[in-house]
């Protein structure tokens, strides 16, 4: 069985961990430069606020209803995300971090999963103060179906028997299935296929013909047959992960450097295919019995040389020559569409960068991917972002630690 754990309104939940005064209050989180709303909690949604609305234009609703607003604090979100994932690693033998706030967990061989799902939720809530919902089912796609329903009840849902599964599929609209884009959803609805249950009844050869292998893999998964190769459509607002497991343990930093550069290249490739930029880079390095990670903020960027130099600088921080490493991973978080990228007046190079990237793409299109790729460059921090409503870095800066008052129990 596979579980999908999802943090509820993750950015807003992170903002309220150290603000007990915000309990049950509407909270929104703004994009870089405080332009638009990128995250809201249910209380804010109930006021008619939506993701993607401009902050300035929503100001009336925000002020009239005392909505609490924050600039995005990826330093805080990243630290709390690590805590949630670390707890999951203690609760399951295998955790696949899918995005900053979602993870698949391996529950093969676990008994009494209905109870265990609740144990996981309670443990994470207690140890990190982040609320989660969990879907548990025989395959990843079904776990997602279960998690979607669990979210509606703010709890956990186990789909184990054929009866459970078919009931869940009947109440899942086809457009909410993972990997079904809006184009396919429209096409399916025109053909009278409205629910996931309708979808699994289409003959396999029709699915293969009309929807390529992705549709076919999804259909098999929904029938309860795990397909290891299943790739789900990446939600552009979530993170991008690229990891390398070395064929044999590696000690040499220059080899790890090379690996992270290559994997950064793959991640940035994905990023740019989605026409997005990243605001936060995390690098992790795993040895036997030792895992370390480090993160840095970047101004909304899709510029590979910058991302590589950040990744290498981070690697240097966590690398120790005393260990043999078996895996390194690069995570890009804080993904935003390029159209939302704000011109940074301090970043005088950007027009040059655009030109360079275009040329690199042209050469790679002609001579194959990675035909031309960046060499090492110096680490440089780019600043100049407006984040007027930034919360303190409660967990990563000593001067920002939350404050506890004395004079209780008196």
């Amino acid at each position, binding site marked *: 069985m596979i579980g999908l754990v999802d943090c509820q309104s993750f950015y807003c939940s992170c903002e309220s961990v150290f603000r007990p*005064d915000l309990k049950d209050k509407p909270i929104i989180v703004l994009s870089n430069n405080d332009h638009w709303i990128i995250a809201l909690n249910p209380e804010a949604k109930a006021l008619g606020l939506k993701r993607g609305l401009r902050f300035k234009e929503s100001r009336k609703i925000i002020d009239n209803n005392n909505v609490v607003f924050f600039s995005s604090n990826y330093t805080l979100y990243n630290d709390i995300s690590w805590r949630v994932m670390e707890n999951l690693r203690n609760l399951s033998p295998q955790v696949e971090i899918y995005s900053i706030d979602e993870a698949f967990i391996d529950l093969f061989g676990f008994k009494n999963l209905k109870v265990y799902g609740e144990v996981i939720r309670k443990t994470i809530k207690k140890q990190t103060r982040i609320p989660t919902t969990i879907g548990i089912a025989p395959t990843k796609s079904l776990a997602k179906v279960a998690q979607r329903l669990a979210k509606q009840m703010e709890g956990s849902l186990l789909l184990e028997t054929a009866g459970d599964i078919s009931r869940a599929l009947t109440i899942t609209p086809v457009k909410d299935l993972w990997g079904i884009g809006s184009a396919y959803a429209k096409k399916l609805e025109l053909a009278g296929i409205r629910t996931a249950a309708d979808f699994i009844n289409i003959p396999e050869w029709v699915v293969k013909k009309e929807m390529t292998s992705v549709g076919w893999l999804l259909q098999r998964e929904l029938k309860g047959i795990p397909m290891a190769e299943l790739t789900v459509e990446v939600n552009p607002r979530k993170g991008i992960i690229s990891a390398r497991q070395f064929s044999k343990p590696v000690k040499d930093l220059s080899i790890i450097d090379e690996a992270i550069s290559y994997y950064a290249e793959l991640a940035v490739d994905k990023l740019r295919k989605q026409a997005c930029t990243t605001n936060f880079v995390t690098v992790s390095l795993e040895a036997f019995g030792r895992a370390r990670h480090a993160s840095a903020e970047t101004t909304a960027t899709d510029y590979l040389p910058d991302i590589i130099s950040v990744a290498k600088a981070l690697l240097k921080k966590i690398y120790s020559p005393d260990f043999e490493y078996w895996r390194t991973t690069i995570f890009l978080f804080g993904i935003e569409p390029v159209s939302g990228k704000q011109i940074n007046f301090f970043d005088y190079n950007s027009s040059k960068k655009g030109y360079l990237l275009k040329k690199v793409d042209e050469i790679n299109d002609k001579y194959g991917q990675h035909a031309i790729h960046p060499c090492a460059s110096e680490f440089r921090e780019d600043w100049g972002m407006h984040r007027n409503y930034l919360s303190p870095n409660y967990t990563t800066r000593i001067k920002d630690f939350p404050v506890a008052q004395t004079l209780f129990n008196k």
Partner: protein
Amino acid sequence: MKRIQRTTGFGSPAEAYAENDIDWTSLLLPKPHAMYVFTINGSGNEEYKICDKDLAIIDCSLIPRKGDLIIHTVDGEFGIGEFVGAEKDIVGVVSRLVRFLRS
């Protein structure tokens, strides 16, 4: 990191015996996924061994016992106090207390 010094004359016979620096982080934060750090504000709780500007490291995985120091939320604020059993929203049990006496 090992504390090894370069010598210009004879190599240090102690070099091979140098050990890694003490890992204060894992001493203070043995469970980083379940621990948060708070700064204490206000004096007046000295009888509970808490002073202004102390750092209270809490372990959220522990179940509070009578007499433990805990961080809990009271009227939208965090407070530190002795566990009596009636607290509603307990954040965690104080497992380490760091005090800076002078510098």
